């Protein structure tokens, strides 16, 4: 009897050891995308704690910083592969950095769970890679969601001119030509200008935009650019009816700055969403970190780890190929809504998680982000024209 019990304990121990999994996490914890990177890491750690607490799987995270810089990301990724010897990597937030990782990823062959990297340049770079799971929508999904909003602005508010400021890296510039064409198809006159993210120098471009007199000032860039644009637009006397931004994250404390008022943007998630998974996530996040985040990268990181844990459980193994097979057929509810993988719209990658439907538009109103479009998700009507004058 004792022998049998000992054997059972040994088996249980072996089973537990089998599902103990070392997971590499490569995120921008410094540099231009640090706000998104840290939010993502918080979500990942929260989910890993929850998974480990259930005892069904044990996840051990090995976190490295890519510095929002391809030159730092490649050695950091190589370290994960060669020193930490992980088989599964969560990361790929910034398109330019993820693009640079495409070679090393193909070389070492991990199961790569990608949290961001919306640029279709990345989709192309990972074409045919069998262990590439992309959770975040692609840029054409983002464009589709934004175009829906612009169509509404054109139809309901008579907006006719858009001035676009886009950062000159892959995030901002990939597909800008197509974007311009699509807006023109909707009846807009478009003027688009590139800029260097983090330079803080917008006065010259904004001055030129003044002659164009846009209804909408639209910028595609990073959080560091938000305040300089909001400030310098006023300083050069640009008077758009809407300032609309599409950064992966917004600067910390931006909502407390009066210059943020009426600035609109697109997000995939806000803590005020009424879906049950979202409410559960918000509560767990508040309990662990003592605050509520508005960064959608936090639930995105959370979702990735939760889905990974379910796949590990389903696969009953820590073999990356078997986990990938389990992930491919997974169906689950997330703070963003239902998640299931299918081939990307272009057919270049096999496992695409979310699409255009998770996006919605918000506006900074009285110190917080309020959903304003589409109507089924709106908690407040859009303020158009926004007041960007100095009071």
């Amino acid at each position, binding site marked *: 009897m004792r022998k049998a019990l000992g054997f059972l304990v040994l088996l249980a121990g072996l089973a537990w050891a089998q599902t103990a999994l070392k997971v590499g996490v490569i995120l921008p914890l410094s540099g231009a995308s640090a706000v998104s990177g840290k939010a993502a890491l918080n979500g990942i750690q929260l989910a890993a704690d929850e998974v480990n607490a259930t005892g069904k799987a044990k996840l051990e995270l090995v976190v490295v910083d890519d510095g929002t810089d391809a030159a730092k990301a490649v050695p950091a990724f190589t370290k994960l592969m060669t020193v930490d010897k992980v088989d599964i990597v969560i990361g790929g937030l910034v398109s330019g950095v993820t693009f640079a990782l495409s070679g090393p990823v193909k070389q070492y062959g991990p199961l790569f769970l990608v949290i961001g990297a919306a640029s279709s340049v990345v989709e192309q770079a990972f074409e045919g890679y069998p262990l590439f799971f992309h959770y975040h929508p692609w840029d054409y999904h983002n464009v589709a969601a934004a175009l829906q909003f612009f169509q509404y602005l054109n139809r309901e508010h008579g907006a006719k001119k858009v001035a676009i400021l886009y950062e*000159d890296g892959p995030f901002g510039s990939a597909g800008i030509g197509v974007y311009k064409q699509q807006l023109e198809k909707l009846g807009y006159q478009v003027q688009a*200008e590139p800029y260097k993210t983090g330079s803080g120098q917008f006065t010259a471009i904004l001055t030129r935009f003044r002659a164009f007199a846009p209804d909408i000032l639209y910028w595609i860039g990073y959080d*560091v650019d938000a305040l300089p644009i909001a400030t310098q637009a006023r300083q050069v006397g640009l008077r758009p009816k809407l300032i609309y931004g599409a950064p992966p994250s917004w600067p910390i404390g931006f909502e407390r700055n009066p210059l943020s008022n009426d600035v609109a943007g697109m997000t995939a998630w806000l803590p005020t969403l009424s879906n049950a998974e979202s409410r559960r996530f918000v509560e767990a996040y508040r309990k662990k970190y003592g605050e509520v985040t508005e960064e959608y990268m936090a639930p995105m990181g959370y979702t990735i780890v939760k889905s990974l844990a379910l796949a590990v459980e389903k696969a009953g193994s820590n073999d990356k190929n078997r986990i990938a097979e389990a992930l491919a057929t997974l169906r689950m509810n997330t703070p963003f809504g239902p998640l299931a993988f299918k081939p990307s719209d272009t057919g270049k990658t096999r496992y695409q998680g979310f699409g255009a439907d998770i996006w919605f538009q918000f506006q900074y109103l009285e110190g917080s982000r309020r959903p304003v479009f589409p109507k089924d998700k709106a908690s407040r009507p859009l303020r158009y024209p926004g007041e960007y004058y100095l009071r």
Partner: protein
Amino acid sequence: MELLLQTLLNGLLMSGVYALVATGLALSLGVVGIVNFAHGEFLMMGAFLSYLFFALQGLDPLFSLGLAFLAAFLVGGLVYQGLIRPVLPAPELNQMLLTFGLSILLQNLALLLFGADTRVVAPSYQAATLTLGPFFLGAVPLGAFMLSLGLLFLLQVFLTRSRLGLAMRAVAQNRLAPGLLGIEADQVYLLAFGLAAALAGVAGVMLSVILYASPTVGFIFTLKSFAIVALAGLGNLKGVVPAALVLALAEALVSTYLPGGGGLVEAVFFLVLFLALVGRAWRSP
């Protein structure tokens, strides 16, 4: 025409901060004779100091200017005594490696203390604008420009009218002869290096409002200052203001008139540096 004038105005306003930062670099290069790659980190310190005072005490950045000047002067003095002075007799490469290492150290120290997030000092007048007919002038960039000019004027008075200033210029011109006349070169170096750091610290306070404070905010200003100093002539203090004006106007014009110029604006200083060096090479046989 209106666009051209507004563009020139934008460039003119930016040139003040450029001149202030580059004058510090020219001082340390011209007087102490050291290529200081950590110059931008004094600027970063000023920016974070302004942020701390604003975030913790609600202190207007205008009041932080004096404090940043003193703090950066003190840190600059300590850096000179502790690090720069011992390597002055060493080959130039050693000096450059030391200041480069110091730059990395200070950036990482800031990363540890403040994290990588950008911090903004947002006083109520941050986006205030003055209108002159069809032209717009941001109140903060205008204030920064005026203050920079004022400081540079005071520096000029100090260098031309005070004994200490004259001693500094003498050391800049000839390192041996002033010693024979009883001028303590070491003290002059200390003062010059402290002043250089202080000017960058003040510029940092201005940039905490115009841009943001972050561990890497100073780096690009070090590079631009090198371009300005090269254009002005290494160590030539008088040439710094016109050289800063050339760089700022070139950036504004490229950004406004070149297709896709907004993405190229950070490359302008490379071009300026390149042209300055090539021009000098052609002039000297």
